[in-house]
């Protein structure tokens, strides 16, 4: 369904709200992300930033509001069967990387990367293989193609998870605290892969606790607290000159100097 009037930006979130019973976790959030833009969402835990990210691909559907990707409404209200088919389709365009990697432990690295392209895009074994080789080269893990995830380090697992998401050729990538579960010395290798994606103009929405990374890579930073976007702007303004007291308080605690 194309809508040329309502959704101009590449990714648009309009009047997003979500509540569990009486608990409001997202309150009237609006966000537009242009193609190729990289947006970081920061904020204390429980601020709703992961929930917002997970609403984009319907993992945690909104209570009200709209999510659009390239003129297609992700969270259309449809009868159950049609909704399922629609969501399965649009999710193919939205890559997601999780804090705990969520690699499939019963499959090799190759199997992890080729599973969805083979099932959903009808790739032949040879085509899927070539895709796995290509994506692994990108994240620098060509030699691990036949390993099982249990034999990889955390950083390597996360890079494979990124390769798995990229193999679906997504239009946008969502990162949900992709480096939070990693040992400090493994964070950099994952950040490098994300920086490389940024240079290739992948559209990315990144929930992160790493202010330095957000400052160096992102075009825009959103600060969320208690379910609302308190303040947003380019990293230069957000990190050096935030206007809101809540933002300043948060950054005082989290900026490493």
């Amino acid at each position: 369904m194309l809508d040329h009037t309502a959704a101009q930006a590449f990714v648009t979130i309009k009047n997003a709200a979500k509540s569990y019973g009486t608990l409001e976790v997202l309150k009237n959030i609006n966000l537009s992300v242009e193609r190729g833009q990289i947006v970081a969402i920061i904020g204390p835990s429980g601020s709703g930033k992961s929930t917002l990210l997970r609403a984009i691909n319907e993992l945690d559907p909104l209570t009200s509001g709209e999510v659009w990707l390239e003129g297609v409404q992700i969270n259309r209200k449809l009868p159950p069967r049609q909704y399922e088919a629609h969501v399965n389709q649009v999710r193919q365009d939205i890559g997601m990387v999780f804090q705990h990697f969520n690699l499939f432990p019963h499959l090799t690295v190759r199997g992890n990367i080729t599973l969805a392209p083979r099932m959903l895009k009808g790739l032949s074994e040879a085509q899927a293989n070539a895709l796995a080789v290509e994506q692994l080269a990108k994240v620098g893990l060509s030699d691990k193609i036949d390993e099982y995830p249990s034999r990889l380090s955390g950083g390597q697992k996360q890079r494979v998870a990124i390769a798995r998401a990229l193999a679906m050729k997504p239009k946008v990538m969502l990162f949900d605290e992709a480096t939070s579960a990693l040992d400090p010395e493994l964070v950099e290798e994952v950040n490098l892969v994300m920086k490389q994606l940024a240079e290739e103009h992948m559209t990315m929405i990144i929930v992160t606790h790493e202010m330095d990374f957000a400052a160096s890579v992102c075009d825009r930073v959103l600060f969320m607290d208690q379910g609302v976007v308190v303040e947003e702007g380019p990293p230069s303004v957000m990190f050096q000159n935030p206007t809101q007291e809540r933002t300043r308080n948060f950054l005082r605690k989290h900026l490493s100097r």
Partner: protein
Amino acid sequence: MDIDLILRVYPFFLQAAWLTIELSVLTAILGLTCGALGAAARMSRLAILRWIAAAYVSVFRGTPALIQIFILYFGGPQIGIQLDSFAAGTIALGVNIGAYMTETIRGAIVSVDRGQTEAARTLGLSRWEAMRKVILPQAARMMIRPLGVNINALIKGTALVAPISVIELTYTAQRFIGSTYKPFEMFLVAGLLYMVIIYVVGQGIAWLDRRARIQ
């Protein structure tokens, strides 16, 4: 202890052990089928199926297997179900162990980390595709041992069909006690044969479990 007597009667016990094995195999097949269907129903999106499965589990785990066997074999004819003792015993035991296996299979499936489903669904896999390619292969490995426990219980449970005259190990022991008045020897022979069967099956399950764990 009367060794001579044991040597004289043990061919009959071997024959009876064979029947116990047949009974166990058929019961296991029926139980696994009921367990798989029960687990699927238990996790269905249709409330009515979930309710039926929950009722099945609580009825068959909440009453003695012996009563279930008696109801089917003795009570069945009253409501038009005529089964010979072997068939009645197999069906009652199979449906009974299926209730336990329903919970075993469901438990293994829900113990697979939620993140696995999320990762699969995020890639665009449907609920069923994610179940088949990501969840079930992992759950299958985790259910081998607990299903082994269920199978161990069902083999010993086959003794419960002795009262409806299926000529398996326990019935055979009782029959020979009637003519020899040597319960110690007769039950000892029957018990040893159960042990052999259970040991062999246990080794088989341990082997399957090891094989599934490699990689």
